[in-house]
């Protein structure tokens, strides 16, 4: 009764073998690496938050430009306009839900320096990274359905208004940042 546990205890008193030591060190290493990984993921989360807020600022700045100009000036340049190749759009632009080939508000005069009339442009965000800024301007109805031909009307409710949608895209964003606002004409604008 006394003998067995004593024998076991004696047999067990081997000290550590190299293998045991290595295993202990590996376990320790895994523990410390897990801590480092926590820091890395926190850092990545901060970076992501910075990207999203920067993209949001690019979008806000573009929307603010529309608030400064008159209702009649809210329109996108077309390829036939003066902005030439800088007015061109691609499949990323046209596959967006805000894009409408029929209700799009277009203008034949668009200077390549005027941000409000360029469908696609590249802007530098506050974090000095490049963001692709897509702008959509389309007629929409507050209520009822929009009809573009023979004349621009809504089936019910007031006259069509212009809806501006701003989409900021970047490979470092998990999803594009978008915001949208409607603009209406009022006396003096």
């Amino acid at each position, binding site marked *: 009764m006394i003998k067995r546990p004593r024998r076991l205890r004696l047999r067990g008193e*081997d*000290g550590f073998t190299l293998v045991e030591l290595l295993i202990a060190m590996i376990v320790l290493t895994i523990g410390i690496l897990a801590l480092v990984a926590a820091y890395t993921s926190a850092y990545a989360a901060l970076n992501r938050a910075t990207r999203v*807020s920067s993209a949001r600022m690019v979008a806000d700045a573009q929307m603010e430009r529309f608030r400064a100009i008159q209702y009649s000036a809210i329109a996108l340049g077309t390829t036939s306009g003066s902005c030439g190749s800088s007015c061109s759009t691609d499949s990323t632009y046209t596959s967006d839900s805000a894009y409408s080939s029929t209700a799009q508000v277009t203008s034949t005069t668009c200077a390549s320096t005027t941000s*409000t009339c360029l469908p696609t442009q590249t802007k530098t965000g506050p974090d000095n990274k490049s963001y692709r800024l897509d702008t959509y301007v389309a007629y929409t109805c507050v209520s009822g359905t929009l009809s573009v031909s023979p004349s621009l009307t809504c089936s019910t409710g007031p006259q069509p208004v212009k809806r501006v949608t701003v989409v900021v895209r970047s490979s470092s964003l998990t999803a594009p940042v978008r915001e949208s606002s409607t603009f209406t004409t009022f006396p003096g604008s």
Partner: protein
Amino acid sequence: MGPIARARLPRRLRARVAAECGFTLVELIVAMVILTIVVASLSAVLVSATHSAVDANNRFQAQEQARTGLTQLVRELHCAGQVPSATNPNALPITDTAGNALTPGTAYNAVTVQLSSACATAGGVTPYVTWCTSASALKTGDYALFRVTSTTSRPTCSSTGKVKWADYLQTSTPFCLPSTTVSCGSPPVFKPSGSLPMLHVVMPVNLKGPSSTVDSYNVVDDIVLRNGAHS
């Protein structure tokens, strides 16, 4: 194990126990040295990870402050209005701290607006609100953005009761009013013809001074003065 206990054991076991001498001091020291090297290198990684986490956090906080400050400034400029007088029917709702109109293209370190009591940030009265920069208390050579209000006269940055909204700014003159002919900032920003007046605001935030490009965060916006007139 004492000698009495050892004598009680069978002979074979006694031999084994005698052979089980564990580590020598040299072996132990070698193992400890190896372990120390491993732990030291891992803790170096841990320390540098902690440093960069703290650094990233500070940077993010400074950027967030600048963004929050800009948002508050935007709200107040959007809401700001000034009753046009007979002598100045096209007066802008924004002036310098002396009440004079801003000169287009000139960078200012302070601008003042008068808020209507209907504005969300006015606090139920019609205060003069001044946004201004002053030397940063946190870093020599940097500037901080302050907001100061008064119901009696246009306050300045030396007035009491100013509240800090952002820090680590690399410029002392963040405000500039562009016109259709005179630009602000770089690349130059002009006011589009026929548009409402706008205030160009530049707030470069950098915790490490202007030379560090990694940390630079450039808050730039053109804030529309909605109660102005199209021109």
